[in-house]
């Protein structure tokens, strides 16, 4: 066994050397959704560790690290009290940068917990950023509905489904809903105000118990959109007769009377 240096390359070399000697073995295992490789102490390695490393530590009552190079390289000094110690399995942990970062953590549960914590933290940051971005879109309420863009209508739709089902708004706004809405707007010649009226009709007609999926809801809205256009447009029209209408009515009456 050679004299080890400090550094990643040296550590890898040392581990390789230990593997070749049969003191440790590399095993592949699945943790959560990822596959990792870990080095485990073999029986032979355990015996050697006990004999060479742990026993002298006890004898010397030392607080030094069990992985200190100076101790590993010490010559064999077996004593009679070797049998008094039980063999323990020490996990050397995975390779790569994690090896250095988590060298002190040898418990799988702790690794998983730490990983989960990091993931949760990242998710919370992501959702916070999305919510902040979503709040910016609330400025649409300061503009009259007929000037709303498809994005504004999309955000209104998302807000409404959030109010009913607590579905995260960006699960709609980040989907293909807004491009689909733009296409419908072009085809049916609608504007924000008409689409808002369609939203009212849509949410007034669906069974809230039946649906709870964002994608299902926006696709249903897109499917039903054409059937609501007529009703929505007519609901926005004033029935007051303008001067022009009165003129046209007189013209129609003149035609009836044969005065044209």
């Amino acid at each position, binding site marked *: 066994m050679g004299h080890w240096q400090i550094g990643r390359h040296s550590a890898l070399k040392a581990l390789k050397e230990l593997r070749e000697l049969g003191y440790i073995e590399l095993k592949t295992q699945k943790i959560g959704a990822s596959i990792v490789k870990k080095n485990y102490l073999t029986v032979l390695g355990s015996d050697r560790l006990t004999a060479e490393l742990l026993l002298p530590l006890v004898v010397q009552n030392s607080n030094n690290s069990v992985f200190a190079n100076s101790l590993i390289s010490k010559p064999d000094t077996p004593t009679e009290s070797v049998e008094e110690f039980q063999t323990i399995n020490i996990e050397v942990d995975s390779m790569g940068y994690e090896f250095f970062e988590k060298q002190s953590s040898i418990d799988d549960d702790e690794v998983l917990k730490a990983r989960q914590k990091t993931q949760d933290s990242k998710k919370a940051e992501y959702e916070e950023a999305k919510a902040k971005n979503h709040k910016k879109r609330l400025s649409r309420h300061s503009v009259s509905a007929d000037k709303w863009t498809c994005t504004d209508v999309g955000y209104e739709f998302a807000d409404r489904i959030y109010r009913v089902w607590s579905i995260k708004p960006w699960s709609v706004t980040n989907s293909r809903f807004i491009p689909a809405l733009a296409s419908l707007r072009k*085809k049916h*010649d609608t504007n924000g105000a008409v689409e808002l009226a369609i939203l009212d009709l849509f949410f007034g007609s669906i069974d809230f118990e039946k649906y709870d999926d964002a994608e299902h809801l926006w696709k249903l809205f897109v499917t039903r959109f*054409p*059937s609501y*256009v*007529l*009703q929505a*447009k*007519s609901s926005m*029209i*004033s*029935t*007051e*007769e*303008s001067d*022009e*209408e009165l003129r*046209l*009515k007189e013209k*129609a*009456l003149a*035609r*009836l*009377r*044969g005065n*044209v």
Partner: protein
Amino acid sequence: MFNVDELKLRRRSWVKIAAIPYNRQGWEFKDCTGVISSDVEIIKEWVSTVESGKVIKSKGQTSCGQGLMLYGEPGHGKTTLALVILQDILRRFPYEAFSPEANKTLVRPCYFLTFSALLDLRGALMEDPTDEEQSLFAGILGESVDDAYNIRVLVIDDVGKEHMSGSGWQKTMLHHVLRTRFNNGLPTIVTSNIPLEAWGAVYGPATESFAREAFVPIALKSPKGDLRK
């Protein structure tokens, strides 16, 4: 109100076959109390013109085939007025006012149906239609070979309440029915919640333009508001 059962047999059968809802059978203009009188006057003028023979199949007349369009918000009496007009025509008009062919007996001079029902009827014709359905639809268009079946005055109720598909088939059907009847010199009464000036946006500019020629528009607005409430 008048009693339908007291009418002469032929006129009684016309009322029965016109599909007039039971709850409005026997209604007259004087029963329409919630409607502005000036609107009723225009309607009566139109009825008089039809009675005088200047509308139904009147060759060369500007009023030939000209119908009525009653539009406004729900509950302001559009459908009721349309049904009153039909019954007034069926009850009072001299037989000659319907411009029948010589020695022909009219089967169905007037008829009432909703636009949705008309679309359903047209849909039924595409599958396995009965003779009755075929005869009725030909009569609605005014294209029945036997003129006795051509409907002289047709009411199409609730235009604008139909289901609108993405293909726009309903719009095409509306234009087709109204145009065909107009060309055949047969007036139509349309009730709608869509004002005539908005027909361009909903049914297309061509349909609006045609409707300007084919109808006398009347915006019904009851001073009492929604008469159903």
